[in-house]
């Protein structure tokens, strides 16, 4: 079901400002990869290049290759829209559509992919909400506004919305940073479950979180003041956190950074 991602020589720009440079990595299917690194080093930027969300910012552009199962997402004739349907995204701040009910929020992506019968949509909404561990909390109020849920519930609603369209890959940009520890644990457990169906990439500032959930970790850092961000080191998570090969990585994870 899910597929391998291969990035090679990727640069991303905001206008003339180069935010990340020469990023190459391979991400295996059905794994969780964590991106860590100091603020402003380009983790979000890189994440958004993976589903072509980077280019929606005026003046932003990307150079390099991102292969999903061998096919270049930036190749000629590839529609950004179809890329985003295969690679879902969960944002830092929960962003359910405020004008939609819980049900409509989860079904939102399905409506884009052609007509479906009511019962089929009902089924997918239920599976997705169950998949996001939210079903029991909302099953009696599916018609109520999604914005009326708690922050943690809203974030799980956004996860349900993202997985409802059955993407290959799920990108999560600090999905727990606005949540309390209990909601955070709920989402971490969820990621471990979702791993069997999706490839997951998560940006996090929480070292314990990266250590708990991820299989592999990439450490991003700026090459220097005013320079673009790069991947300093990428390895098995256990290695990154016990025996990193780069000094900068060790300084960062032990809190001796900058």
């Amino acid at each position, binding site marked *: 079901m899910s597929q391998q991602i291969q990035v090679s020589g990727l640069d991303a720009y905001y206008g003339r400002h180069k935010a990340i440079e020469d990023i190459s990595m391979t991400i295996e299917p059905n794994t969780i990869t964590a991106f860590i690194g100091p603020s402003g080093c380009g983790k979000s930027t890189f994440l958004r290049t993976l589903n072509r969300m980077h280019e*929606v910012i*005026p003046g932003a552009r990307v150079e390099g290759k991102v292969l999903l199962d061998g096919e270049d997402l930036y190749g000629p004739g590839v529609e950004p829209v179809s890329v985003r349907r295969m690679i879902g995204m969960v*944002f830092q701040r929960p*962003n359910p*559509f405020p004008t939609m009910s819980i049900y409509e929020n989860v079904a939102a992506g399905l409506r884009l992919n052609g007509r479906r019968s009511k019962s089929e949509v009902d089924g997918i909404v239920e599976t997705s909400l169950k998949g996001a561990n939210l079903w029991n909390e909302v099953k009696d109020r599916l018609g109520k506004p999604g914005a009326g849920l708690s922050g943690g519930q809203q974030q799980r609603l956004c996860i349900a919305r*993202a997985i409802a369209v059955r993407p290959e890959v799920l990108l999560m940009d600090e999905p727990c940073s606005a949540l309390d520890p209990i909601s955070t644990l709920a989402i971490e457990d969820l990621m471990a479950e979702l791993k069997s169906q999706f490839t997951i990439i998560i940006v996090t500032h929480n070292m314990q979180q990266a250590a708990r959930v991820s299989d592999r970790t990439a450490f991003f850092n700026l090459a220097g003041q005013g320079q673009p961000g790069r991947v300093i080191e990428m390895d098995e998570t256990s290695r990154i956190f016990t025996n990193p090969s780069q000094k900068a990585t060790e300084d960062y994870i032990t809190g001796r950074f900058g």
Partner: protein
Amino acid sequence: MAATVHTRDGGSALGRSASRRSRGETPFRYASTGAGILLLAIMAAIAVFLVVEAIPALRANTGGFFTTQTWEPNATRPSFGIAALAFGTVFSALLALIMAVPVAVGVALFISHYAPRRLAGVLGYVVDLLAAVPSVVYGLWGITFLAPFMVGPSNFLHDHLGFIPLFGGDIVAGRSMLTASLVLAVMILPIIAAISREVFLQVPRAHEEAALALGATRWEVIRMAVLPYGRPGVISAAMLGLGRAMGETIAVALIFQATFDISFRILTPQGNSIAANIANRFGEATQTGRGALIASGLVLFVITLLVNMGARFIVARRKEFSGAAA
């Protein structure tokens, strides 16, 4: 009310700064309360004056004020009624709204979501400018250009779609309900477009990105995130436009043929409205005539009020889904 404020401030450990604050606050509170009361008093005085002026005329009326379709308040046996005028007011304004809103929303979406940034800036400025053009200018344009111009298209509609009552009738004229509504539509379009654009620009980036990340095309983003979020604002803008169209005087007074029929035929030489009738008849009005016109003005006021309440009701009905909380 003042007492509660004092106990709250008095209980505070920052007594000194609190008293300094309330020293500045008291005159302001009196000033703003006074202004509010004065405004209400003025409005009440105007209402009382109008009603007092209207009552003798209504007493003298030998016809039914709500049903009669003539306006003869100056006759020895005064007979006048609001029926045709109220109909014309609402009908022409609704036609204008039906024509203006889709175009205005389209223009607003183009400016907010499709046009390149520089073009959007220029267009936005032009729309704001058009919204500030005095209505008499639209009226003059309507009578000198649009009315003669509309003869051709009106005949075409009449010939090909005349079997629909809307386009039926015996005679087709340039100065018709259609032309008046078109002028009104052109007149209210900029204000609706300007407000809608503001609303569409306020849609949080996070909602648009949520739609994009699901694989929505630009149009789908608009349908999913922009239009639903902007809906209350667009409704308010439309109601503002409707209010302006119903209250519009000079532009339609120039075009309407000042008839007193209730007719859905939009191509025939007919049409009138409360405001146009006031403009046409005020000069020649006697005491009773003036009272009659004032009474019609009160009816216009009530209609406008009802429209606004209707809009508020529509907006409030889905408040919990409005996005105001997010």
